[in-house]
């Protein structure tokens, strides 16, 4: 599973990454968590608001920070 966290490094972006890593650990899944901080790459993906989260290439949250529990539910889908 590939998880991408999009954001350039502000407090919300960091919180999202923390929530993702915690969710992955608690859900017990094997995932490659990648932080995408390059604005050009973020825009090229069609993501216009950050922070954003994609799981296996699909955007599941854009412009907000889902909770650890919500991310765990996303991981199970």
């Amino acid at each position, binding site marked *: 599973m590939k998880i991408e966290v999009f*954001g350039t490094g*502000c*407090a919300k*972006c960091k919180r999202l990454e923390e929530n993702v890593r915690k969710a992955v650990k608690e859900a017990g899944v094997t995932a490659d968590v990648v932080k995408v901080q390059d604005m050009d790459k973020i825009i090229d993906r*069609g993501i*216009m*608001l950050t*922070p954003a989260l994609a799981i296996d290439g699909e*955007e599941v*949250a854009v412009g907000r920070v889902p909770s650890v529990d919500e991310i765990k539910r996303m991981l199970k889908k």
Partner: protein
Amino acid sequence: MVSKCGCESSDILVLPCSGAANCGQIANEIALRLRDSGAATPYCTVGIGGHVKGIVEGARSAKVLVAIDGCAVACAKKCLEGENLKPTIYFVVADGLGIKKDKVRPKEEDIGRGYDEILSKIRALCSKGK
């Protein structure tokens, strides 16, 4: 998109129809001026109409959606409805500003009037604490 991290800009999104007629382009210009003044963030209406997942998810996260249609055909509103989204503020340029829809370039004075109208609606909404 704002050059800094866009984390604070998803509160108020503006979705103009950006249609081909003068009214559609007035809608587009209003959105851009709201960005310039820091009042709101223009967003990708066509992305929502095209069901682009990343764009739709961003709209769902917004606190306020401002849809600006050029005319009563209401394309921007229909784009939102196609994803079960409803505008918090809705404005139709032709009716709201008393402009005849035409295949001409928009007039600066009409853009200015439209901008003032939308800005006052956003401010009124924000003053209510929404």
